[in-house]
């Protein structure tokens, strides 16, 4: 408890001191791999700005920005479904001036979809950067029968499966059970009902789970050592392991992989908006985007960057995603505020269940 207070206060103190920095410093709150050193170096050389990178995840990004009322950073990269809700609730972002961006650099369909999902009160808050999916990472030799989320409950792989106790698991299981959670986003009662069914299923499956993984490194260790043969995970995780162990790869589940898009947003109290726009325009160039794809393992919304991506990655992508699988990707719609409370209750009960 104390730890958290100290953490939050420290974040506040850091934010205050960082606020005094010159506007030439771009404080970037992003994911690991989204701002590789070579890209940062190139950008700094070209523009003269300094880039400070803070690596984080969706929840922590929002918590950090919430703690400071949207200060401390000049550019953040939450997923597109986590923008409208927190913005309505906490007001931690500021609208994007699309005229400052070079629209030609973006894949138009992704650009439009993201803008639609991140519009609050007629203002656009986000533009797309990196996209990917989550689904199953499977040792195809040891667990060839795992084709869908609910297959993780199969007795054939009991004791050798793992997944996170986080919302993607709830959504994935719901689809796999023939339900449509995204359609019920706006209807709290219907969503609670769906989550209730998922909860029962997850508790039923619990006996066969080796452990609920917490971090990517932990999962990689479990899969690499063979202690776990099937798991829910991001596509990149599967592809990375595939490079070392050809049996292991990412499998798009029958019910559909879950698609996410990480965006660019401007924190409400950001101080270097111009540098932020410059960064966006810089990294969306096809060659630069390819460098990011190489580092992060995921494709970007940059138009034409595919040409620069490595053949290995393209091959793995095509193996995991035949055309019907791509069409079947379930893209996360914006999460309405308050939904986390319902999901949280479910996750707590699953964790506590014997």
């Amino acid at each position: 408890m104390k730890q958290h207070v100290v953490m939050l206060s420290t974040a506040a103190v850091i934010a205050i001191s960082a606020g005094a920095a010159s506007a030439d410093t771009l404080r970037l709150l992003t994911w690991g791999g989204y701002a590789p050193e070579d890209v940062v170096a190139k950008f700094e050389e070209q523009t003269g700005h300094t880039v400070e990178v803070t690596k984080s995840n969706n929840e922590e990004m929002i918590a950090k920005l919430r703690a400071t009322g949207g200060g401390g950073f000049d550019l953040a990269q939450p997923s597109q479904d986590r923008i409208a809700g927190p913005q309505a609730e906490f007001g931690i972002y500021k609208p994007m001036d699309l005229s400052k961006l070079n629209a030609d650099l973006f894949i138009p369909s992704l650009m439009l979809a993201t803008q639609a999902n991140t519009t609050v009160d007629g203002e656009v808050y986000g533009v797309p950067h990196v996209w990917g999916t989550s689904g199953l990472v499977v040792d195809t030799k040891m667990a060839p029968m795992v084709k869908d989320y609910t297959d993780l409950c199969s007795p054939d792989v009991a004791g050798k499966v793992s997944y996170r106790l986080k919302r993607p698991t709830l959504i994935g299981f719901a689809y796999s059970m023939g339900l449509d959670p995204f359609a019920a986003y706006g209807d709290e009662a219907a969503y609670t009902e769906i989550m209730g069914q998922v909860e029962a299923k997850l508790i039923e499956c619990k006996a066969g789970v080796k452990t609920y993984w917490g971090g990517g490194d932990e999962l990689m260790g479990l899969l690499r050592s063979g202690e776990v043969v099937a798991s829910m995970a991001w596509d990149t995780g599967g592809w990375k392991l595939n490079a070392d162990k050809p049996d292991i790869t990412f499998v798009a589940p029958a019910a559909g992989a879950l698609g996410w898009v990480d965006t660019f947003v401007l924190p409400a109290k950001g101080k270097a908006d111009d540098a932020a726009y410059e960064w966006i325009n810089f990294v969306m160039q096809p060659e630069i985007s390819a460098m990011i794809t190489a580092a992060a393992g995921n494709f970007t919304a940059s138009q034409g960057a595919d040409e620069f991506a490595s053949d290995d990655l393209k091959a793995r992508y095509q193996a995991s995603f035949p055309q019907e699988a791509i069409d079947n990707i379930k893209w996360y719609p914006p999460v309405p505020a308050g939904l986390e409370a319902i999901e949280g209750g479910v996750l707590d009960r699953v964790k506590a269940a014997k």
Partner: protein
Amino acid sequence: MRREAKLGLALLLTPLALWLSLLIFIPHIDLFLVSLRERVGVGKYELSFANYLTFFNEPLYLWTFMRTAVMSILATMLTLLIAFPVSYYIAKMVKGRMQAALFLLCLVPFWVSELVRTFGWMILLRETGIISNVLQYAGLASGPVEMLYNDAAIMVGLVYTSMLFMVVPLVTTLESLSDEVVEAGYDLGGNGVSVLREIIIPHAMPGIVSGCIVVFMLCLGNYLTPTMLGGKESLWFTELIYSQFIVRFNWELGAAFGFMLLILSSLIVWGMLRLTGQSLEKTMG
């Protein structure tokens, strides 16, 4: 002269006062106010005790708290049982350079971060880990043995992490026990057990209690060890707080949880002090 002295005192106390008020009092007051808010709509809040009611009405939260408290107490007792002979050995049986070396040895694990230490345990305990392999090699196990992801693993991690904080106060108090007094205990007819019970333990009581308080609080507030080493149902109370704050964006409930943890852990410490007849001044002073 007097004014200078006053200024000196003020300068000395300022960092402490700043530290206390900026990092302890103000955040706690703020947190308390947050815990009293109830979300009634998008961006709308009302003053209420709803968050505290949630804590008491949801058996899961109470159960998790009880579990965390009981396991922390257990870990504290285990730490004490292991640390006491170690401390006695360091304080009484060895002298000089050897004593310093042993003490340093207790300190060594703390030169790496808690994360690394916990990973170390994971490497040892996991199914494909070192202990499992050694057991199979020695023919003591027919197949891989999973020792990770259960409450015993949490215990091991907690005891390991807490060891130093028990050893330090124990060594300090045991060092102040004169050899003569122990010898007198034997000389007057006591055996090992009775000398331990009637002389050494009563003398070490302040150290035992202060060590136990520190270790108990550390275990209760630990986040990494229980989440990383724990199994599928090993919920830890700090985990609940973290997920309320960070994952659920529910600062209001998280703050209420935080306050309940503060209050209940204070109650347990108070109870421990009463039970052992010690006072906070005696143990900390």
